[in-house]
């Protein structure tokens, strides 16, 4: 095949295919996947498995957010809304309606994905048309609205208390299959592998989306919107497309999260503080990298899991100093500071900065 007759997308794909199995990144990814697969065998404590699974879920969510933020260049402040919609549909079907079966679980997630897609298209259509900055404000307003809706509509959502529920068959927590390679294979394990599989598929789908022709157009819009308009693209249609795709993925991850914790409430899956976490994960990991989300999620989840222990330490070291204890309790304060500092000094995040250093070395 003549290389010159190919368009840039095809050329990129050809190059990628040639070096696919030779690149060190490929082995890194396989290693990471292997780590995730064997985590339940490596660590027998539930706490660690829980943290690892949350890293998996949140890195998928962050990657979907990165499609909007890093690849399309528009700011959504309501992305967690779709995550919450996914969780809530699973919660409502399993808990409120009591329709505990595989079919209804799939149906719940399907409905959540559809609603998220439609909602994001609607929001996109009437806020992206004018200025991309409107999108940030309108999504924030909608998220606050759904949050209040979820905490007020007691008869459907259970209000602030939320809904806790059981899952069908082999996914139920009480399910026991028997011992397998030294650990007991419970419903938790089924869910772990199910969610890992779903997240993997979603992640590959997103990588595919970003490298597709549509993804290329999105990146061109991010880099120079006027130029893309001049090239004849209806930019806002592409932006709407990206946002609805990302929202569908977010709804799926929300469903997975609900399956793992078997509980859904406004503060655990719809609140602004989760949005802040997701923003911080994207910034720490690096925008426009997809894989950065894994690092960002890992950083935040691990610090989030171990900070309470630090707090106990401070309380033991400085007894009777309420101000110091309060200062150590407010870990969100340090996250906020970190957030500002990262935006100043490492605006590309961990993965972005690393990529920059590597490419600079190669250039020399």
């Amino acid at each position: 095949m003549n290389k010159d007759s190919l368009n840039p997308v095809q050329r990129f794909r050809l190059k990628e295919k040639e070096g696919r199995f030779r690149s060190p990144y490929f082995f890194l990814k396989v290693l990471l996947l292997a780590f995730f697969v064997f985590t339940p065998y490596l660590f027998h404590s539930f706490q660690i498995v829980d943290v690892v699974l949350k890293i998996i879920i949140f890195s998928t969510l962050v990657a979907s957010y990165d499609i909007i933020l890093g690849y399309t260049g528009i700011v959504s402040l309501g992305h967690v809304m779709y995550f919450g919609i996914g969780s809530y549909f699973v919660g409502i079907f399993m808990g409120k309606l009591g329709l505990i079966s595989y079919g209804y679980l799939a149906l719940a997630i399907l409905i959540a994905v559809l609603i998220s897609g439609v909602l994001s298209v609607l929001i996109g259509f009437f806020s992206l048309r004018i200025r991309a900055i409107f999108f940030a404000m309108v999504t924030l307003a909608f998220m606050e609205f759904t949050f209040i809706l979820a905490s007020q509509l007691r008869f459907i959502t259970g209000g602030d208390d939320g809904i806790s529920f059981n899952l069908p068959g082999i996914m139920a927590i009480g399910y026991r299959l028997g011992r397998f390679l030294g650990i007991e294979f419970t419903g938790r394990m089924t869910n772990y592998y199910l969610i890992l599989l779903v997240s993997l598929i979603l992640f590959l789908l997103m990588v595919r989306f970003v490298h597709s022709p549509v993804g290329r157009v999105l990146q061109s819009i991010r880099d120079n919107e006027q130029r893309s308009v001049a090239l004849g693209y209806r930019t806002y249609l592409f932006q709407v497309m990206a946002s609805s795709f990302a929202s569908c993925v977010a709804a799926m991850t929300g469903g997975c999260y609900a399956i793992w914790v078997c509980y859904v409430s406004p503060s655990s899956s719809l609140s602004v503080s989760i949005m802040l976490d997701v923003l911080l994960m994207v910034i720490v990991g690096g925008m426009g990298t997809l894989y950065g989300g894994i690092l960002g999620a890992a950083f935040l989840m691990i610090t989030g899991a171990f900070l309470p222990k630090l707090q106990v330490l401070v309380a033991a070291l400085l007894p009777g100093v309420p101000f110091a204890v309060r200062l150590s309790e407010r870990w969100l304060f340090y996250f906020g500071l970190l957030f500002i500092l990262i935006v100043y000094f490492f605006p590309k995040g961990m993965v972005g900065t690393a990529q920059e250093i590597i490419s600079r070395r190669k250039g020399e």
Partner: protein
Amino acid sequence: MNPKSRQWLPKSAVIAIFLLPLLLISPKTYVTLTISGIAMGMLLFLVASGFSLIFGFLSVLNLAHGALFAWGAYISFSAFSFINQWTGWGGSNSIFSNILIFLLALVAAGIGVAILGVVTERLVIRPVYGSHLFQIFITVGAMTVMEELIRIVWGPNDEPMPVPVSFIGSWDIFDVVVSKYPLIAIVIGLILYLIVFTILRRTRLGMIVRAGVENPEMVQVMGHNIYRYFTGVFAAGSALAAIGGGMWATFVKSINPAMGGEVIVFALIVAIIGGLGSMTGSVVGALMVGLSYNYVAYLIPKGALGITMLLLVIILSIRPTGLFPEGT
């Protein structure tokens, strides 16, 4: 649409929101609701106007505005408690000393948060002028830090807000119940609106700011140090938010560190409805939101927020840039 009907649309929208509920609500209740709606509108105006002006002039989407609002509430709470301990004005029956202590608390909040605003603008926002993406991140970070600082300084729990004695209760005028505090809030809000409006319309400073909203580069070309005006506008917007915070806290009689988060969304909606960067727009948008919220809260208690969102969606689809153009 021709220009005449464009000017007509916002007015008719306001009149419709004013009069439509009369069909469903009895006149006496209507008067009570209207007064509390206007009061709410005035408080929203104080928050939204600063937000809108900062966006119009600095083109910064200041998501930390809600935290500044909460800071205002907390500073006025502390100032009120401090002065009250010292003089006992808040508990006395004289309406004059009641109003004096209330105003002093608001002034303290305004000055304190204006200083905070200057620090925020200089330290946090200035390095990222021109990049919308980073501004949003930075202001989200600033919001988190400021909110957490409140939790560190004042503690994480809700506090009851002290209210001057003569502000409690209501008057009974021809069988119509008129609460006292909303009327006071309306008067203070109107005075502040007139002050801001006069400064923007009648002074040289206001002229420069209005010019800056339309075209910052041109103002710089004319030899003005626009960054100094940026700081000034940010400080003024913060002070307005702080005064709004103090008044809001007295309205709901309690304060909590996260109170800014709920209000910032209303401010956003008001600013979008009225048109970003427009003072008149903020006041009209705030009145529309405040009134419709109160009427619907009376008719369908759980639909109050829904009507606000509906208003936003309708206005955005008819007039995507808001009711009023920039700089008016």
